[in-house]
Each structure stands twice: as C-alpha cells, then as structure tokens.
C-alpha cells in the first residue's frame, strides 16, 4: 500500500519550471530520502506534498487515510521562532491542534499525547523551558515531538540537520530512524546528506530539476547515478 503517489508531477516557481516529470510513490512504513544538490527542487516538491504549493502539472494521489490533518511536518526554522517566547510543552501541544476539530480547547487526551511524545524524544524534563533558550538539537527534538503529535502515519522533514553539529546530527538521525522503525511512522525527508541517506533510508529519490532516480537504497547503490553521486562526494 502506498501513502502518496506522484504522477508526472511538475512545479513552477516564478514562471520557471523548478522541477518536472516526477513519478514515485511512498510505501507505507518506508523511509524515503529525497536527495540532490541545492536548488534542484527538493523543497518545492516537499511543499507540494504538504499541499502548501499547487502542482503546475500532474497529480499527487493520497491514500484515503491521509488527509491534511494527518501529516506531521518538521519545517526549517524561521527567524520568527528564534526569539519566540513559548515553552516546550506549548509548542509540542500545538501539534495536536489538527485533532481538535471544532473544539476550542485541548483536553486531557491531547495533553497525554503531547506528554508521551515528549517522553519518546527525551524532552519531558525540559517541558517548562523556553523554546528560544534551547540548543539547536533540542529545538529540533521539540519540533519533532510536535510533528509526532500531528500524525499517526507520516512525517515530512525538510533538512532537519541544517545547522547542527555532527554529534547532534547523528543523534537526530538515530531518533528519526527509531521513529520509523519502532513506531512505524513513514518518513519523507529532504536532505543533502547522502551518507546518512544511504545508511538509514529504505528508498531514495534523487532530483536534479527532474527525477534522476527512484527506487530502494540497494538499487540506488548499484545504479550508475548513485555510484557517480556517492563517488563524487567521497573524492
């Protein structure tokens, strides 16, 4: 069963075709890494999947279980968040908003959900700390916990390791792998860290304004494009 299927998809940016001819599907439980150099349409595709940007051509077909309010998202940090006065628990709880429906306030159910996700990511002890005072790695964990609150199926991540040091990056990747493996949550991640991608991902989508490769990680390692791309980075 695939959660998301893209057919002949293309996106336009300011009248220029940013990325075209995308055909792939995200199987349930997969860990898909979208790789490619900067400015090759990765983030644009992600925005399309999240329904933040309309496709220029083609279709994105979602599994019936996957409405907009069942997708978790870990966006890149915005300047606004850097000095935002909010506690960790306030931020995590805001991820439960899409399950509120028409109710105005959170109930015990949402609070417990937020609490268990904070526990999963090891941030329960800092739940009353101010978000802006945390380290980069801790902030990403908070946002990951919020994404977990918003979904039971799939999390979409946009360069989650941007600006983190190598050790913290490693921890974050392990955590995402754990979420995928143990909690059975499908992962779609944009990254330019190809080494981490081949280490953790089950599927790879390689973009360069068009689709160069889509398949499992094993197939990618054996393909010409995969060999070439990884080879270039190793030199």
């Amino acid at each position, binding site marked *: 069963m695939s959660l998301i299927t893209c057919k002949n998809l293309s996106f336009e940016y300011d009248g220029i075709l940013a990325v075209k001819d995308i055909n792939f599907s995200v199987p349930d439980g997969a860990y898909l890494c979208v790789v490619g150099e900067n400015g090759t349409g990765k983030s644009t595709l992600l925005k399309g999947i999240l329904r933040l940007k309309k496709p220029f051509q083609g279709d994105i077909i979602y599994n019936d279980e996957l409405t907009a309010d069942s997708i978790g998202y870990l966006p890149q940090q915005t300047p606004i968040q850097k000095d935002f006065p909010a506690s960790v628990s306030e931020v995590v709880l805001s991820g439960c908003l899409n399950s509120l429906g028409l109710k105005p306030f959170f109930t015990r159910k949402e609070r417990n959900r937020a609490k268990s996700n904070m526990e999963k990511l090891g941030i329960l002890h800092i739940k009353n*700390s101010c978000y802006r005072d945390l380290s980069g790695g801790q902030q990403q964990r908070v946002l990951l916990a919020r994404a977990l609150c918003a979904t039971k199926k799939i999390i979409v991540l946009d360069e989650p390791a941007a600006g983190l040091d190598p050790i913290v990056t490693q921890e974050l990747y392990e955590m995402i792998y754990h979420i995928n493996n143990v909690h059975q949550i499908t992962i779609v991640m944009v990254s330019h860290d190809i080494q981490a991608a081949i280490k953790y991902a089950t599927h790879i989508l390689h973009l360069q304004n068009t689709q160069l490769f889509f398949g499992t990680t094993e197939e990618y390692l054996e393909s010409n494009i995969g060999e070439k791309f990884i080879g270039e980075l190793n030199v």
Partner: protein
Amino acid sequence: MFDLLQEMFSYPFMLRAFLVGTPIALCASLLGVSLVLKRYAMIGDGLSHVGFGALALAAALNASPLTVSIPIVVVAAFLLLRLSENSKIKGDAAISLISTGSLAIGVMVISLSSGMNTDVSNYLFGSILSMSQNDVLISFGLSIIVIVIFVLFYNRIFAVTFDENFAKATGTNIRAFNMIIAFLTALVIVVGMRLMGALLITSLIVFPALTAMRLAKRFFTVTLNSALVSIICLWSGLILSYKYSTPTGASIVICNIMAFVIYSIIQKIRDTIIREK
C-alpha cells in the same frame, strides 16, 4: 490619592475615558502579542494613518466618524495583510506608501473643508473630550467580541503565530486566522484612535507585548503580562494626564515607556543572576 480619584471621576468625560480606554487597551495588548511576533506591527501603524484619513473624510461629509472609518480601515487591513504576505512586493515600503498617502489625503480634506484647526491636532494626538456615550457602548461591545474570539481561538492563534507553515500543512486555515486578526486590529484601532490619536494608537499594540516579552518565557504568561501592563499603563497615563493637564495619548505612551524600561532592567538583573549561578 483617593481624593484625586474621587475628584477625577466626578467629571463624566474622565469616567468615559476610563470606560472606553480600559477595554481598548486590553484588546490592543492581546492582539499585539500576535502582531509583534508575526512582524506585523507595521500594519497597525499603517491602519492608524488610514484611520486619520477616514476621520477627516467623515468630518468633511458631516457623517458619523465610526460608520465611515470602520469600513475603510477594515478594507485597508485586508489590503495591508495581502501586501505583507506577498513577498514579491516590499511589504514595509508598501505600508509606508499607504500610511503617508492616507495622511496626506486626510490633511488635504481637512484643509479644503474646515481649514486647518484644532480638529487636526485632536485626530493626530487624540482628545479625551471626544469620547461620547456611544463610544463607551461601542468599545465595550467590541472588546467583548475581541476577547471571546481570542479566548476561543487562543490555541489556534498560538499555532499560526509560532509556525504558519506547520499550521497550514497540518490543516489549519491560516488565511482565515490572519484575516480575523487583521479585522479585529482594524476595529481596535478605529475605536482607540480617537482617545490615543492616529500617531500614538499603535503604541497600545506594540508596547505591552514587547514589555511582557522582556520577562515572560511562555506564550500564555506573555499574553497575561501584556494585558496587565497595558491596563495599568492606561490607568496611570489617564491619572497623570488629569493631574498635570498633559495630553492623554502621550501620557499613556510615557507610562508604557516606563514599564518597558522597568521590565528591561529586571530582565538584565535576572540574566546576570542566572549567569553567576
């Protein structure tokens, strides 16, 4: 102190100023938290200038000030919001354009109709005498609407303020929320402008929120602090203005400046203590 208050409230216009000012200050401070954090504070400034133009127009047409200015300012609010959301146009420059433009139109209308007189000064810097019984009712009604909407949508306002993209991707209609916030801001500005003046009304939106952010570290406490600071500063400003016969709007802003300085000093002291630990 008690005598002073008693004497002050024996004047109906002072009582009205308190009755109009308190709910307006409360609403402005609640909306201000979201506007400041979203970097939309300039919209408030733009709207107050549009409001000035609208008031001048109302006076020239001999129409009731609020019935003319509310629709004009609400339309301007939606327009300014669109300009700010659209990154292709330079949002801040566009806001300056609209605000200075409306100011100029307002001045022209006044000088052609009644000539430059004290009205202009009242519009720009506010006048405590311009509050009518009607204003009291309108500002109460308005504040109840703002507070009910704010409380009911508190969690959604937080989510949209903290991270628009996340809220949008997970199924919240952020456009509707931005429009609600812009609409409420427009109403608060129109009603508050006659007390505070077109040039000073934005301070009610910006100051309490920024002051609260010096010390509070949670969104909830920022909101509460902002409301509290705003009301206390308004009251002290009105008392100051009565006691020393200073202009009302400016006196309230002076109190807000003092609150900001006090909060900043406490923040400095607290940070030093934390660092030394």
